[in-house]
């Protein structure tokens, strides 16, 4: 049974929505080697969207806006990819995908990867905690309690919420062999 935490958007191609879609099959190259691609892909997404926020030399605010949007896209995409690479189950017949939708007043990211039953239930526990606790308090609690040593994945999501005002949602869909397709959606207003 598919379970949603928050609302995952169904976005169809439209004239006023720019979309980028990247897919990876991580098993083909060791994680250590692939790690640098997270940064390359994230920076590519960040640079790509700047085209739609052109600079006006007479208006310094345009430079700041461009730099903030590039920074936000690059940070969020990098975190989504890092988490996907860490938790993806290579054996399942699913790629890691990241999609970016650039709309007039918001950017939507949807990242999917496969996870085995146990990994996905641990993650579900974290998701439930994020949704029921104040994310600012939860961040400080994780940092202060040293719990972050193992579960540092969660800090990326908390940073998106606390520092970028991001709205997060998740979907867990059962796929073959005791696995799930886990989708994380991040929306930022621009």
């Amino acid at each position, binding site marked *: 049974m598919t379970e949603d935490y928050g609302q995952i958007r169904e976005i169809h191609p439209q004239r006023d929505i720019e979309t980028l879609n990247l897919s990876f099959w991580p098993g083909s190259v060791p*994680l250590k080697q692939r790690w640098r691609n997270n*940064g390359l892909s994230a920076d590519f997404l960040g640079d790509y969207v700047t085209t739609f926020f052109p600079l006006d030399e007479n208006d310094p605010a345009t430079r700041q806006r461009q730099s903030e949007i*590039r920074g936000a896209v690059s940070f969020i995409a990098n975190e989504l990819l890092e988490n996907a690479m860490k938790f993806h189950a290579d054996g399942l017949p699913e790629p890691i995908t990241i999609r970016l939708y650039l709309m007039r007043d918001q950017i939507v990211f949807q990242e999917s990867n496969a996870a085995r039953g146990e990994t996905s239930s641990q993650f579900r526990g974290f998701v439930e905690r994020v949704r029921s606790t104040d994310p600012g308090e939860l961040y400080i609690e994780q*940092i202060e309690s040293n719990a972050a040593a193992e579960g540092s994945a969660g800090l990326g999501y908390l940073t998106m919420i606390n520092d970028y005002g991001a709205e997060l949602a998740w979907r867990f869909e059962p796929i073959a062999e005791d696995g799930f397709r886990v989708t994380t959606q991040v929306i930022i207003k621009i």
Partner: protein
Amino acid sequence: MTVLEGDGYKVELDEANGCIHMGGALRLGGLNEYAPISQMLEEALDGRDTLTVDLTGLEFLNSSGIATLSKFVIVVRNRQNCALKIRGSNAIAWQGKSLNNLKRLMPALELSFD
């Protein structure tokens, strides 16, 4: 100068001036990969009453890196024998978003933006 260098980043301790410069893009895979940097930061506290961390050249820091900095700020706060200054840059977007949180962890932290 003690230097830690890797793919796209450099962290150096300027012992004479009590300053650690972090530059480039840091996206190491988890807190354990940040351990050498944490160690350099913590060792720099020994025998000093003031330490400056200069982030004005640090274009990118992933959440594990932000957590590493946060944990370091807590160490300094708990030791109570060294003043900490962090220099950021207004031109680098993530710093405006995330550095202010460090003051929540340690109100005595001196945070400035160039």
